[in-house]
Every structure is written in structure tokens, then in C-alpha cells.
């Protein structure tokens, strides 16, 4: 790891100011960034910690009923505090990584990084969440732009994520047992105006919505509804852990499981 400066502001404005400097990088839980720096794949001059900002912490219910999670809230906190208001989201948070990752890693960090096998992108896209930054609000459908790519501008901070609470939902994750990332995982959420299905871990383009399944499930919210559908292996990830065909197969199986668990 190269040397770096470390600052820990206590307000979003101070954090944004610090991030305006040359080669400054936001640090949240550090569960991806610190290993990356140790590998010297990243070498920021300044790390701006986001964990000392009170307004970016915690879980609450917004005026519209959405579950609002501060950007620097850990997975363990979401798993505990959203359990009553949004069990599907709490369930997702409780399956991330191991206890260390859950107690250090944050929702904002996960979404900003947008790892193609991370859990939160499926939760955000599957709920049509709103990603709130220090300068604007971004709809999840506009936010995810491919593997490790997002709509965030340089220095922009995710301060909050607003998850609309569905009537029913479930996150079903096929665990890669060594890394505990998703080999393939699916978030299914049923709203009054339709069903959303978001898939992570499977596609070379990162998290995506399986729109055919959404249509079928919006018409008939039962696992059988996707029986006639299939997912093409083209564009799926093939790596040391699984073939693209296997991942494509898992998309459908995990979707059905999520529907069954949600209904």
C-alpha cells in the first residue's frame, strides 16, 4: 500500500470539499477499497472517510413509506434495523460476506463500487430505489451502467438510499462458498404496479433486470409464471467458479425461489 493522507470530516459538505482535491478517494467501510490499495491497484493521495458523518448513518422510514438508509450505514445495521419494515432488504444485508464485512461494509460503498457479484445492486435495482447523493437524486434504473460503472460523478457521495417497500420480496443468493459473493443472486419485489426482478453475479454487464420475468410475474405472481422463460447464456460471466450456461440456469432457479419465498 502506498502512503496516503487521511481525513475524517463530520459533515457532508466538508466531505465533498475534501473530495474535490486531487486524487482524493471516498472511504466507507473499506472492504473492497483497502484490499485494492494493498494490491496497489488503487493509490489515492487522500482518503476521505465517510463514517464520521452522523446524517449518513442509520435506517428510518421516509414520508412516502420508503426505507431510507444512510449511505454509511453498515450491512449489519440494515439487517437488524430494517428487519421489521423491509424483511427482504434486511435478508439481503444479512447474507453479505462474513461478519467482518457486514460490520464494516456499507450500502453506499457497495453501490458506489458496483461489483458485478455484489448483493446491494440487486436490492437497489430490484426495488427501483433512489440513490441520493450530495448533489442530486438518481433512479436506480439510471444508476447502474455496467461492471464497476455507475452514474456517479467524480467526488460525488451517496448520502442516502431510499428503498420503496414492496408488498412482498425476497433475495435468493447462490453463494460462491470461498468468497461468499453471489455466484448468481436474484432480488424479486412485488409492488402494486408490478414486479421487479434484479439479477446480480451473473452478467458481464453487472446487475440487470430480467424484464421477461417481470412481465410474467406482474401478470401472475407465482413461480410457475417463469417456467416457459429462459435466460440466454450469451453475455453471462464464465470464470473459474462457473460456466455461463450454469449462471444462466441459476438466474431462473433463483428467481423462482425468490417468488416462492416472497409469496
Amino acid at each position, binding site marked *: 500500500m502506498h502512503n496516503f493522507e487521511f481525513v475524517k470530516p463530520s459533515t457532508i459538505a466538508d466531505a465533498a470539499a475534501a473530495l474535490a482535491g486531487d486524487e482524493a478517494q471516498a472511504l466507507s467501510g473499506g472492504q473492497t477499497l483497502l484490499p485494492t490499495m494493498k494490491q496497489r491497484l488503487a493509490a489515492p493521495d487522500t482518503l476521505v472517510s465517510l463514517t464520521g458523518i452522523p446524517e449518513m448513518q442509520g435506517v428510518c422510514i421516509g414520508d412516502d413509506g420508503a426505507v431510507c438508509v444512510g449511505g454509511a450505514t453498515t450491512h449489519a445495521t440494515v439487517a437488524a434495523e430494517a428487519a421489521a419494515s423491509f424483511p427482504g432488504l434486511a435478508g439481503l444485508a444479512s447474507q453479505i460476506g462474513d461478519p467482518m464485512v457486514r460490520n464494516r461494509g456499507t450500502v453506499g460503498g457497495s453501490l458506489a463500487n458496483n461489483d458485478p457479484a455484489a448483493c446491494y445492486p440487486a436490492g437497489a435495482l430490484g426495488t427501483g430505489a433512489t440513490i441520493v447523493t450530495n448533489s442530486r437524486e438518481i433512479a436506480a434504473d439510471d444508476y447502474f451502467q455496467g461492471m464497476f460503472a455507475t452514474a456517479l460523478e467524480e467526488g460525488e457521495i451517496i448520502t442516502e438510499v431510499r428503498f420503496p417497500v414492496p408488498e412482498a420480496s425476497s433475495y435468493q443468493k*447462490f453463494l460462491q*462458498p*470461498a*468468497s461468499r459473493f453471489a455466484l448468481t443472486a436474484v432480488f424479486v419485489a412485488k409492488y402494486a404496479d408490478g414486479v421487479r426482478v434484479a439479477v446480480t453475479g451473473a452478467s458481464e454487464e453487472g446487475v440487470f433486470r430480467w424484464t421477461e420475468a417481470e412481465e410474467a410475474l406482474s401478470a401472475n405472481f407465482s413461480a410457475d409464471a417463469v417456467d416457459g422463460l429462459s435466460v440466454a447464456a450469451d453475455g453471462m460471466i464464465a470464470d*473459474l467458479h*462457473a460456466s455461463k450456461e*450454469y449462471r444462466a*440456469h*441459476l438466474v431462473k*432457479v433463483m428467481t423462482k425461489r425468490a417468488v416462492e419465498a416472497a409469496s
Partner: protein
Amino acid sequence: MSVAKPLPHDAARLHVTGTARYIDDIPVPAGCLHLAFGLSPVARGRLTHVDLAAVRAAPGVALVLTAADLVRPADCSPSAHDEPLLAEDEVHYAGQPIFLVAADSHLAARKAAALAQIDISPLPAILSISDALAANSRFEDGPRIYGRGDPDAELATAEIVTEGEIEIGGQEHFYLESQAALALPQEGGDMIVHSSSQHPTEIQHKVADALGVPMHGVRVEVRRMGGGFGGKESQGNALAIACAVVAQMTDRPAKMRYDRDDDFTITGKRHDFRIAYKVGHDAQGKISALVFEQFCRCGWSMDLSLPVADRAMLHADNAYWLEHVRITSHRLKTNTQSATAFRGFGGPQGMVGIERVLDHVAHVVGRDGTAVRKCNFYGAPADRSDQGALPPGGAAASPQSISAKAIYNGTRTPYGMEVTDFILDDLVARLESSSAYAERRQAVAAFNAQNAVIKKGLALSPVKFGISFTLTHLNQAGALVHVYQDGSIHLNHGGTEMGQGLFQKVAQVAASRFGVGLEAVKITATDTAKVPNTSATAASSGSDLNGMAVRAACDTIRDRIAVFLAERTQSDPTDIVFADGMVRVGGLEMPFAQAAKEAWMGRVSLSATGFYKTPDIVWDRIRGTGRPFYYFAYGAAVTEVAIDTLTGENRILRADILHDAGASLNPALDIGQVEGGYVQGAGWLTMEELVWDQTGRLRTHAPSTYKIPAASDTPDIFNVSLYDTPNAADTIYRSKAVGEPPLMLGISALLALSDACAACGPCYPALDAPATPERILAAVARARGALP
């Protein structure tokens, strides 16, 4: 007597309090250098340009060496002198050390090593078994073939002929303590080496060779390893030699430990195998002829591959009478890590081959796998009521008596060794009863009839494992025992402690010989200056060999004390009793400590060496005949699994094990070995998957990509018992070796998964190992006839 007691591991308290000392915990003298290798990123190629200027200029770097900088060639091979410490002109695998950095810290050495500029002109790499066969790249001139009878003729007339093939993956040792060594230069060019090694004498030999000094100039000490599993038999040589060479050149201490990624990348693993089979059998599943072709991927250097491949052949029978058999073994040379010893030493791969055959045959004839296994057991009744005919050749020997009607399977292995201690009939019967095998077989069938998605599987598999080094001269051991004038005992022998509990078992032997408590016995580090010319602690032989050597040393001292005290009491020295901390002879009775003190005062030597060599073994590995093993260790396991037929996800639900450790020296430690062996074996065959990419780089080189079973992966119901019966062979207190055999109990997990897959359709699932979810899903599809 302290033998047979379930005492805890002697260092258990140190382990759990973090005070057990490993190589990296030894305080080093001032000026110690820390070493790191620079590795080849290319599987095969010619070194065209090696620019180490930046490495040499890096902070803290004291010395950088390439092969050309070595004063004399340094070889790391345990066998064929084909492993230069540093690559010379060509690199032979991705991960091969090319240069060596010595710096003032571990981190500085690793950082510096990353700065090298190395140009390699790539050559076509031979990576897979198929590549090696196409290129005829192999060790030895051609395949080795063992066998007997006329399997081709028998196959031609067999009622049913079944053919197939199985791929069996390798396995990373994943000892918790990675490879490590520390060299301390002494006056006059002598060297002390602390090494995390199962084979201190080989370290001594190879270091002496690299330094150009006689073996007496090198002393190697090993207190303990944090796990070995065979991975520290030859793979520690490179670090010890590197440290000693640097220490000699600089006159500074030198230490090296591999980072986990480097350990994965540099060191050899279990050999992966492909085994093809063609078996002739009848409608009951009785085998009449069997032809195996074993393809073994050895990696770039010979290492221990020949005896490993031999042992795979020697376990191609497992527990079964194979009258007409041919086993052909191809030892293939590839541009990958040099595959090496791993718990079982090829035996497990050979055994998976024959168990796969039994599984396939049972499926073809539609009988329960256990019934088919039992009718093929050595010495089993071969009389088939439907035919009543003599078995082919009529040469089958009876193990007990030949009644008028009963004809028995033979009891001679394919390599000509008579199996005289076969206990599996009784052992398996007891296990079937204790595990409720028959009832659970029905329950599994009933469950599967009612569940479309989740299918259960159940399998019983036996183990018969040969005990002794197949290289006969290695079956020897030495010990050194001192009794001090206060009655305390210093114990030393050639075996090494790697967590398995050897030291405690041997200390129990010493305490029993002197009739004292274990607190009187000091266990000391393995040291080539105390006991010379030792064999590796391997082949499960640690307690058998060293226990006997220690017994001999103790008895020598005991006899001297007996003669001395008997003389004083005018009694017969053979009447002396050492028990309960006391010595009794004639009318005399005194504490052992007093006897020791009086013997010392009487000028009796209280120090002795002991020596043991295994009797009655002889082996011709070229012809494949003889008696390579002193005896066999047995065991059997019943595993029940469940699979999800939509994804291939799976769980081991329950395992029942009955294992033969003879008259156990320590049932607590032996059960620990059985439990750990089963879990490691099941891990090998289910979840542990090594993946090399198309350029030959190992992509699974850390726990983030390679999953070993954890405590949470043990079955919820895990019933492990010892088959508590004295060894028929005259071993130390009639115990049996227990290091390797239980690993093969894990084969029942693979077979249970195969059984679950077979419940999905009419075809044979042909499940390869490791049985990852993706492979299980493919096997389910094959069972349904949806895949070829």
C-alpha cells in the same frame, strides 16, 4: 499404563492459548535477513532477459540471487535431482522461482521482488493430461503395468461388460502454517536450520548438498508444524536451502515464509487423475475381470510422483478380490506445480477408481451397492446359488475353512500379497447395524419417491489401506531416551509433530515402559543431531516406527536398572516391575526417581538409543510383486447426503464411521484423526476445486477462491467409533496407523452424491470429482438421459 488412555494432545493448551511456537514465532538474532522468491508468470518458456536492477536498488535489500549467482548448484528434489532452487535457462511452470531476494524485512523482500523486469520467450506449455498424452510427455519410459491373470480373455466372455471413466481433481494441502524455514549460521561454516518439515533428515541432506558440507555440518530442528498432510515432505526443501545459502553467503541469519498466495502458487498439490475402467461382471455384480488405466498428472519435476502413482496402483483393488486384472499407470509430466505427497499418497485416487467401478456395476445390475461390494470382498463366499460353479480357475483360497459347497473369493492382492488380516466382513456388518443402513436405504427411497426437487443419497464404502513405506528401506526409525538422576525422562525420536498427536502417543509409550506418569516425560523437538538418518513422518508410520524405537530405548535403560537393582536384592532381574511410579524387585520397592538416582550413583548409564525396522516386508516395484505392507488398516463409512436437483447444491446430512486403529494408543487422538481425515477426504471430493487457466496459471490461490471444509461443514450427525481390536501384526501395543486411512472414508460422500443423482433417472450419472454443484447438476442431467 498411560497407553490406550484418551489423553488430550500434549500441546493442546499451548495451541489454544497461542503459545505453541512455530517457525515464525522463534525470536531471531539481530541482523536476520528475510527472503522472498521472484516467480515465473509463464508456464513454460526460455528466460531471455532478467533485469533485477530495481530489485537490488529497493529499500532494505541486502542480496539478490539468480541461479548464476549461486556458488554451487542447489537442488531441491527429493528424488531425481531435477529441481534447481532457481530456474536456470528455462521455466517449467507458472510459479517457479527465478530469483531470490534477501532484505531486512519480509515485506521489503516481497515488495522488492515485485520490481523485477523479466522477459520470457514462451514455449508451448503442456498443461493437461490430454496435452501430455499427445506430446508423450511422461516420467519413466512408458506406462507401468501391474496385474495378473488374463483380463482380456475374461472380458471377452463376461456376462456383462461395463465401461467408464472418472476425473478426480487435485487438492491443496492448506496447512494453516504456510511453509517456513530459519537458518542460523554457526562457527566454522556449520548451519542450524529450523524448518517446518515432515522430513528433517532430507532438509539436512539437501542443505548440506547445497552448502557443500558434510551432513554433520548441518543440524535441523523441528518442534512442530501447523499442519503438514504430506505437503511438507519435499516442498519445504526450497525454503530451507534458500535460507542456508543466504546465511552462508552473508553470515547472517535468514528466514523465509511463504505468503499464502505464494504457497499455493509455488508448491505441489495432490495429483489429479483420470481413471478409465472396463469391468466384466455377472448379473449379481460379481467382478470377473477388470482393466484400469490410470492417468496421473505429475507436474514439472519427478518429486515423489513415482511412489505416489505406484500406491494408486496398489490400492486399485481396495477391499476386493480381482482375479483377472490389469492396472496401467501413466505418469505424465506437465508444466504445472510438481504434484507431491498428500495424505494417502496416491492410495485415495486408486481407491476412488475401484469404488467408482463398484458404484457403476451396482447401478448396472440394479443391486444395492453394499451388497455388491460385499460379494466382491476378499475371502467372501463366491458360491452363487444360481450357478454353484467354481470361480474361474478354481484357484480361490479359503480364508478359514472350505466346506463342501462354499467357495470363497481369493485373498491375494493383484501384487501377490496375501491378505491375512481382513476384518471388513465383521466391521461392515457392525457399521450397517449401528448406522441402521438397511432401514435408511428404504427411508431414502421413500423420500426420493415423494420429492421431485430434493433427492437424498446413501452410500457405504470400505477402506483397506496398506501400511508401510513402499520404498522398503524407509521403514526404520531411531530414538534417544535419557533418564535424569531425578527420574525425569527426556524423550526424542525421528518422528515430527504436525498436529496429529504423534508426540503424545509416543510419550505414552515411554511413560508406560517406565511405569510413570506422563508428567515425568519431556517431549522434545525432532533434531537431526539427536536421532540421525530418519525417514519422513509420512505413510501413516509415525507411531508404528517411532513408538517401537522408543520402546527399545526405554527397555534398554529399564533392563540396566533391573540388573543393577536385582543384584542388590539377589533377585532375578526379569521379575522387576515398573508400575504406578514405583519400581519393585525382590523385596525392594522404591519410587522410580529413587531407582534412577541409585542407578546413577551406581554408575549405570541412563541414556540409550533405540532402533526399529519393520519386519517381513519385501517389494519389487518394477515387477509389482511382493509384500510391500506390514499390515492393512481398515474402516468403513456410511454417508447420507441431499442434493437440490435444480442447482446441484448439496449437504452431507449424516456420517457414521467405524474405523480400525487396532488397540488404540490414544482413542481421543485417533478419533480426531478419523474425523479430520473424513472431512478432508470429503472436502477433496466435493468442494475443493483447483482451477488453472489456459495459460497454466493457478487461479485458485487463496481462501477467497479455494474453499476447504470448515468446522461448520462437518455433518450435523457425525458418529465416529473405533473398531477396538488388537492388530494381528506385532505393532506397538498392537495399535494401527491412523494418519492416512480415514481420509478415504470421505469417498462415501462422493458415492452418496452419485446415489442421489442416480435417483433422478435411469442412466448412470458418472459423477466426477470434485462434485461441485455444477458437476452434480450435469450428473443429474446424465441420469435423466439428457446429456451423453
